[in-house]
Structures are given as C-alpha cells and as structure tokens.
C-alpha cells in the first residue's frame, strides 16, 4: 500500500503547515497532497514489494550463465530490470514476475536504455506467458496498462541475445490491484496519518493560543 507518509520529506511537508491556516485549509491541503501523492508514490510495496517478485534468467544455450539482475534503487518507488549480457551470444530472457493479489488493472510508466543497437534486446511486460513488447531502442519510454486476474502471474521481461550490452527497463508509477490503492490507506497508514494530523492540529492550537495571547496583550 501507500508509503507516502513514511517519507521524511512528505512528513515535513505535512507538519510545515502552520497555524496561520485554518483547519479547513489544512484538511484540504492534506487531501490534495494525498491525491497528488498517488502518482509519485505508486510503487513496489505491500503485495508487490520488490522482494515478492521473482527474477528468472533463461538461455537457449545450456552452458550459458546468464547474469540478468533487478534492483529497486529508491526503496520500492521504481524497479530497474537489467537483461542478461553474459557474452554467450545466445538468445534468452530475463523475467521479473509476481502473482496478482487481486483482479484489476496493472499500470506503470517505463523507460528503456541500452548501449546495444536497436532491436537486439527487447523490453516488455508479461501477462501469464504472453509477452507484449514495449521498447527496443534506447531512450524509448511511455506508459502501459493491462488487466490481470487474481493470482495470475505478470511482470516484466527483457528478451536478449547476451551480447552488445544489456537492455535496461526502468518501471515507475506502478500500481496493481490489491496493492497500492491511493484512496484506501492501510490501517497502519491511517494511524500515522492520524498522528500527523494530530501534530498539525496541536501546532495549530498552539499557534492560535499565541495569537490569542498577542491579542490579549495588545
């Protein structure tokens, strides 16, 4: 689910709303923040935590030792899938897949890079065993979405020839059913949100008291 308010910057943003704003303004800003944070924070957490994905390399050569890899450079906000480039010259695939936690729509943004010439490595997504090509030329990017059934495996794939440099697929803004759902925070998230709101309201009250005292003194 959402990790928005675990992020220090967001937390600072929340508590920086000072008492000069009205409570309505405060709540409105929080709501807007939550809405906007949906795009920035959709990520590989919860059911789709990076560790819940499976990395698998295949090669048409039995002696090959493919070296595809995957990583999340930003604690789950995005995932980078790097295709194998073992040097064998043998065609193969590097997959990063997970099971859908629920039926619904998977959506994400992607960008593709490679030092190899266009067409020698191909990046795309997997739905079951069906592969859909997204990019084969360095610099290509876009968005993609598709429907999954509950329990169905899906993910990302690099199709490669294990030479000339790997294909690299970066995926961000990832949302999937039963995973990141912006309108329905998890209980833990709600608790933290409540704490945050409490802090802000308390500061608001303190601020008001100071104002009131000032008025009194004046």
């Amino acid at each position, binding site marked *: 689910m959402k990790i928005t308010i675990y992020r220090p910057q967001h937390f600072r943003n929340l508590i920086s709303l000072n008492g000069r704003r009205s409570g309505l303004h405060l709540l409105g800003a929080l709501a807007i923040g939550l809405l906007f944070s949906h795009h920035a924070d959709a990520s590989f957490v919860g059911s789709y935590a990076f560790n819940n994905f499976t990395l698998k390399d295949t090669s048409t*050569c039995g*002696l090959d030792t493919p070296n595809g890899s995957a990583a999340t450079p930003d604690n789950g906000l995005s995932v980078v899938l790097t295709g194998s480039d*073992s*040097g*064998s*010259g043998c065609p193969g695939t590097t997959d990063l897949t997970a099971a859908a936690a629920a039926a619904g729509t998977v959506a994400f943004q992607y960008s593709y890079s490679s030092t*190899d010439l266009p067409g020698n490595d191909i990046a795309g997504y997997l739905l079951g065993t069906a592969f859909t090509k997204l990019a084969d030329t360095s610099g290509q990017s876009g968005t993609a979405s598709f429907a999954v059934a509950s329990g169905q495996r899906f993910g990302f794939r690099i199709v490669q020839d*294990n030479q000339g440099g790997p294909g690299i697929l970066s995926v961000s803004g990832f949302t999937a059913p039963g995973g990141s759902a912006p309108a329905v925070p998890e209980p833990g998230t709600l608790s933290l949100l409540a704490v945050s709101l409490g802090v802000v309201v308390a500061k608001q009250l303190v601020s008001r008291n100071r104002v009131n005292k000032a008025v009194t003194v004046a």
Partner: protein
Amino acid sequence: MMSFSRSLIGLALGAALPLAAQTQNHYVGSIATGQLTRTAVVNLTQLAQSQLLQAQSVLSYPYPEFKPTKLFPKLSASTIAVALATPSMQSLPIGVSGLFGFNALSHYDQRQANNGNQFSVEPPSPSIAVANGYILEGVNNAVQIYSMTGTPLLPKVLATNQVFGVGPAIDRSNNAGTGYGVFPTDIRVYYDQGISRWFVLQRAQDEDVFGNNLNSSHLYIAVSQTSDPTQTYNVYTMNTTDAANPRCPCIADYPQIGSDQYGFFVSVNEYDTFYNQFVDAGILAISKSSLAAGSLAPTMESFSIPFQSGYEFAIQPATTPPGAVSFLANGGGEYFVSSQSKFFPDNNLALWLMSNTSSLGGAFPSLSLTQTTVAALPYITPDVAIQRPGPLPLGSTLGGALAFLDGGDTRILSVSYAGGKLYTTLATQVADSQPKLLVGGAYAIMSPTFRSGTLKGTALRVGYLGVQNNSLLRPAIAVNAQGKGAISFTLVGPDYFPSAAFIPIDALTTGSTVLIQAPGVAPEDGFTGYPPNGSVARWGDYSAAVAASDGSIWMGAEYIPNGPRTPKANWGTAIFRYIP
C-alpha cells in the same frame, strides 16, 4: 611439420553495408590434426624429488653463461610525429598496497634449476595460473608451484626442459663442448577451468649439440593429466618450422594462450630463422576434449594470417575467468584482440572472432576466423624507461652505465572476456604534465558482437595509465566474472627502482592510485643491459594477472627483490592477491 593454412578471403566484405559498418576480413584454416603429438609423460613432483638426490653442478666451462639474447621481435615501424602523437595522461598518485604477496621465482631460481644446467635468461616473461589451491608460475625457463600462502610445493624449481621431457638446455658436465640441448623460451602457463587442466607452453629454435641454431623449431605444450598441477603431464610437441612456406623456415615466436568452451588456442608470430624477420601471424585451434583425454594427436586446425593491414601481429587470445562464459553462439567462439604494428600512431584495435569452435569436438573441424577494427584510443610505441640510480655489481665489471629498461611495443598484452566485455591492455608512450615522455599503459574495455556473420565492436571505456616522471611497464589485466579486476605492471623511473605494482579497475571505474606491492631494492643489473648487448636491458616481456574462482585477482610482475642473485642478473618476480 607445421603447415599454417594461408587463406584470406573477402577483404572489405562490408563495403556494401552502411557507412558505419566495420570492414570484415575472413580467414579459413586447415585441419592440422597430427602435427601436434604426444611425445612424453612427466611427473613434476617425482622430477623435483629426484633433483634433491643430485649434486649441484657448478661447472660452466667451456660453455657461455647465457645464450644470445632472446629474439627481440619488434617490427620496424614508422615513428613519424612521435612527439606530436604522444597522448598526454593524467598522472596517477602512487601509494602502498599492503596486500598479501610473496617473492616468487627469480633469476637465481631459474639459473639454478635442473642442477644448474641452464643458461642465464632475461627477461623472465612471468606467467601465472591459479586454481584449486595452487599457483603455478613459469619464468624463462623454469617453473614452481606454490600454495595459496606462497609455500613452494615442488621441492626444487624445475627447468622447463624437465617439464617437457627433453635434455637440459646445457649439460655443464659435458667438457667436450657438445652439451647443448633444447633452449625453450617465451613461457606461458595456464589453467583451463572447463577441463580442469594445467598448461605449460614454450617455443624453441632447434640447435645442434654445439649450440648452433638450426633452421627448424618446435612448440612444446605440457598438459596436466588431472586438476593437480604437481603431478603428471602429457607433453605435446609440434614442429613449427613451416618449411612449406617460401618465407620460412620459421620459429613460432611469442606464443600466447587462450581458450573458449571448446578450444585451446595458441597464437604465434612466425619469424624466419635466417634474419628474424616477421613473416605472418598464426593461430592454432586445438580441441580441449582431445587434450583432456590425453589424445596422442589432438584434433587441431591451423590458421595463417598474412601480414597486410598491420593488425596481423601478436593476435592475443582471450581468457575467460571462472564463473563467466565464453561466446557460445555460432557453434562457440574465441575472441582475440591485436593492435596496429605497421603504421603508427594509431587509435584502432583489431577484433577477431574464431567461430564454430565446437567443431573441434569432431574429426573434421571447420572453424572460421573473422576480423574487424574498433576505434579505441591513440597509442604509440614507447621509448625506453629510465631507472633510479643504484649499485651495479655486474655493470661496474662490464664498464656499463645504468641501463635503460626496454619499454616494449604496443602489442596487446592481455585480454580477458567477462560479461560480454573484452578487457585489454597494451603499452604506449605517454606524456606527463611537464610534459615528459614516459612509458605508460593503455586499456580498452570493448563490447564485441557477432551477429549474422558480422563482427562488430564498440569501445565502452578507454584510458591511459601513467605516473608523473616515472614509467609503468607491461600492463596485464584480469577481471573476475563480475568484471572487477586489476592491472599489474612494473613501476620504474628516476624515483623508483623496478617495483611490482598494480591498479584496480572494473567496467565503470579505474582506481585513483597506483599501488606498490613489492618495492624494488636496486636497479636492474642484468647482462642484457650492458655491452656487447647494448644499453637497454630486457624487461618483461609481460606482467601476469588471472582471476581465481573466488573472484580474487592474482597478479605477478617482475621487479628487483632483496634476495639471492647470480653474477649475471638480479631480476625477481612478486606474486600477490587483490580482492575486488
């Protein structure tokens, strides 16, 4: 008899391709099975133990202390605009490594091997192989096997003559003047992880019992019967005279070792025996399975590469570290890299691929060799290196001054293939900030591809290695399966006696400091640097670097140790380990 096939087909076949296409040159070989035959079986431990029972020979009369200096196989090359072309480099600071290492074979060890029935030899051409808890080191012309802590495992250093089952280089107990035997040189050792076998390789020009050179030559390859380097080896011999070549009889100089999944490759430079003129390059592709099985006549195909563009010289085969994979498509393939030897300066490297190497598993191999060029970085033949002054026990007796050290040429010195990248090194002249012309190193990390019969390469990262006011000699690179490794070399100059040093490197970064592993304690003081041999001492011709199965990098380099020497030379080697 050696019979290199001489076929060059289809120069510039890439002409119809887009402008950016790299020209393709194709070569075909000929089946040479039967030319390399098993001639002996030796057990190194037994040989070394038998040495313990023999008294050390001290007689040298009537024989000289050393053979004529090793062949100096540089090609004549244009040096036009050398100063203008010399690349300037960012001088690296120098530090101390603190790594584990030990003193390995020295000139003293080499000369005393085989009960002293050896010549004094310079340079050592150090070579190492590491696996299974063993380190095999070879120098001209002796071997020792060490544990991983540097303990010698053979009770005596062996001459390679013993390893190859031939008589001593010189029988110093023979007072009739007829004690000359085989004089092997240009040693290479290797461990092949695919077949778990150790290799010792050398070449020799034949001579009569009086020491006169004959117009014939041989290649010797010892292959262990097991994964234990201290035990029994099958010895293979090949006549490399190439008498069918109108420009020969020849010697197969500068033999270099590489391997892929299926083949064991030896590249050579053919020089004629009369004038020591370069004739052409050759590559032998030998079935690894045949060698592992101890076949009497391993399956083999030979290639002869005529000297045309200048890249057909010292074609260095690639080695693949443990855990990495060689090129497997197109029936398997072995990459090679060479540099320009004809026209200087240059900034291209030649990339070669020998494909369909899996056919070496059958009786009728049909390999194909393709070559193209890759834009890399400017390089130019280096001049000599200057030494820090110091005591010269030999030089003072010969009237010689402090010798220069041979800076070598720009031939490719090492090639490692890991993760689809070729890591390679060569020597080049460089200029520091003064600018002062120095001997430095160059490296290139390339991405090769072979698709639909077209060989291409891209230089991903290139760079120079150099230090202020001093030189780096004979850079050798090795990387592990993750592409992390190091480059070993000798550091020498006005500020340093010849010292073993290295620098870490990987696919993306190069270390910021040259690290001294074994500081030299004196100048090189060997016979090749004094009259009548001139004023430039032989050095190298290599450094050594290999990756072990645990990902560590073992290196070896020539330096001047604080240890026993002979009256004729004082070189030694250091072996050390770097963990990336």
